């Protein structure tokens, strides 16, 4: 479970987040939907404990991130906005590195790597150095390193960006699987149909504030529309930043 409570954060003059509040429950997929520059990434970075909020609180399960970031991160799997792979390491070495950091060693670690390799159907790339990987292969490595330690909470920042259909479907299946197992999944996106297809709950963020939140049906009802996209435009009051 992830809780963001009255979060505020400024970068110099720019107020990136102005009182965001939401909760992502276990066994649900929560979508953070918003135009570019709405504060999605800043909000997620606060959940990782990488940014110190100006005010407000961020919780991972029952851990206050600002008080004990290390313990909070142990319960997180992260698929970041921009993920750089270690191009001189093989997929397995890289996944093992992050498994080790999460305290997995020896047989348990190798089993975890084997499990995640099978789940992501990436046995063909597991012993290759990651230099020159396609976007889909890179996504698999990034997802593998986020999931290898079986975190209770998974946070994904625009995970479908640049992915082909096959990779997107694989990702969708993985997320639905995690939800079924009772994990908490939070992902940010500006792709409407992605969010509409996956999310149990949607938090619409615009200008550093939560414009509305609820199920897709609730949001459509609130805006008086049939489509999430129309509801989104109506709620944020512009058609800025909507992906084609």
């Amino acid at each position: 479970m992830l809780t963001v409570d009255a979060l505020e954060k400024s970068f110099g003059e720019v107020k990136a987040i102005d009182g965001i509040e939401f909760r992502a429950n276990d066994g649900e997929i929560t979508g953070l939907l918003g135009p570019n520059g709405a504060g999605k990434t800043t909000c997620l970075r606060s959940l990782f404990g990488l940014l110190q909020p100006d005010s407000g609180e961020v919780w991972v399960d029952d851990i206050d991130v600002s008080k004990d970031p290390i313990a909070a991160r142990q319960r997180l799997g992260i698929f970041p906005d921009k993920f750089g792979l270690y191009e001189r390491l093989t997929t397995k070495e890289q996944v093992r590195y992050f498994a080790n950091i999460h305290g997995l060693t020896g047989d348990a670690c190798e089993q975890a790597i084997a499990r995640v390799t099978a789940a992501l159907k990436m046995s063909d790339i597991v012993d290759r150095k990651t230099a020159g990987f396609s976007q889909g292969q890179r996504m698999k490595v990034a997802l593998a390193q986020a999931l290898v330690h079986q975190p209770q909470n998974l946070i994904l920042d625009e995970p479908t960006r640049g992915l082909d259909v096959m990779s997107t479907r694989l990702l969708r299946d993985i997320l639905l699987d995690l939800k079924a197992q009772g994990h908490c999944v939070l992902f940010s996106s500006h792709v409407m149909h992605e969010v509409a297809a996956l999310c149990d709950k949607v938090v619409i963020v615009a200008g550093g504030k939560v414009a509305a939140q609820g199920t897709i049906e609730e949001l459509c009802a609130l805006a008086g529309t049939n489509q999430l996209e129309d509801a989104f435009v109506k709620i944020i009051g512009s058609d800025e930043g909507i992906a084609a």
Partner: protein
Amino acid sequence: MSGLFACLLKKEWLDAVRDKRAFTAAMMIAFVGPVMIAISIMISVNKIQTQEPFYIQLEGAEQFPSLVDALKAKAILTDIPPQKEADFSVTISPEFTTELNKGEPAEIVIRGDFSEQTTQIRLKRFKRVLTAFASELGAMRLMARGISPAVVNPFKIIEQDTSSAQSRAGMILKMIATFVLMSVFVASTNVAIDCSAGERERNSLEFLLAQPVKPLSLVMAKTLNTSFFSLVGAALTLLMMGIVIAYLPFHKLGLTINFSVEMGLIIWLVMVPLAIFAATFQLITSFKSKTFKEAQSYISMTIILPMMVPMMLTMANVEHPALEWLPLTGQNAFIADMVKGEAVNMMGLLLSSMSTLSLAALFIWLMARGLKTEKMILGL
């Protein structure tokens, strides 16, 4: 060493050592120093061994035939072949013989452009021949008048060069010290930038810092790995120095260079704190830079330090007790004393090692603190 730290270190090591081209380039520094020393020694040996012949334009030679032979004996030639040029011209005046016979100063005019160093050296060689002639002639004149030539030499100047062969060799050994210090910095530069500003630029730093790992552990792993490369560079440089020194004809310069395996080992050990300092210094510089390129340009500026500081101190002849215990100058002084065969300042070494390590610790602390702030994580 805990399992987590071992895993952090292993990844830094694999990532750095697999960057083969950068690794090889960094280690090339080990060859630069020894090769430069070898070349400078070979050149000076050659200069001493051969007295290069040169040509002068001699006019009025018929008045002073014995001079031509005396000059030839010292490889100063007067028959200029068509493709050669004279370095300067010498004119013996037409009244030379008359004046000489009368016992008056006989005129010899030397004309040329003496702004060039080689011409100046050649002029000296020419004058030496003339002076020898003059003093011999003068002595004979005095004896003919029944006066001992010793009368005109109230002083007998005896030069005794007390510089031992060892301390003259010290100049060369000072170069060794400089190159070893340089290797410590240069060999690890790429690793330092790559694992800090490079990691950030490749977008893997942010993800790494979002893991349950203390920034301090990360910084320590990066420091340890980077200083390891420094020490490999220093070891290679010392090894190459040893080989070059063993095969160079120092005896032809009248020099003896004692550079033993033990000495190399001691120097290497003295380099350990400096390697840690170099690693942290380069890491903090690149963490503070916004991009890889920016880090590179800052660090290439600072790399001049190990070369310039000792050189400037030598040139300016600065002597200050602080230099014995400051980072870089302390180690430099220690190596210079040791290779010159002089007494080493153990207290100075201890203090400089401590000051070096304290600074490194300060940099580590600053980095660990900085990596908790968005400024350094995101390179804002």
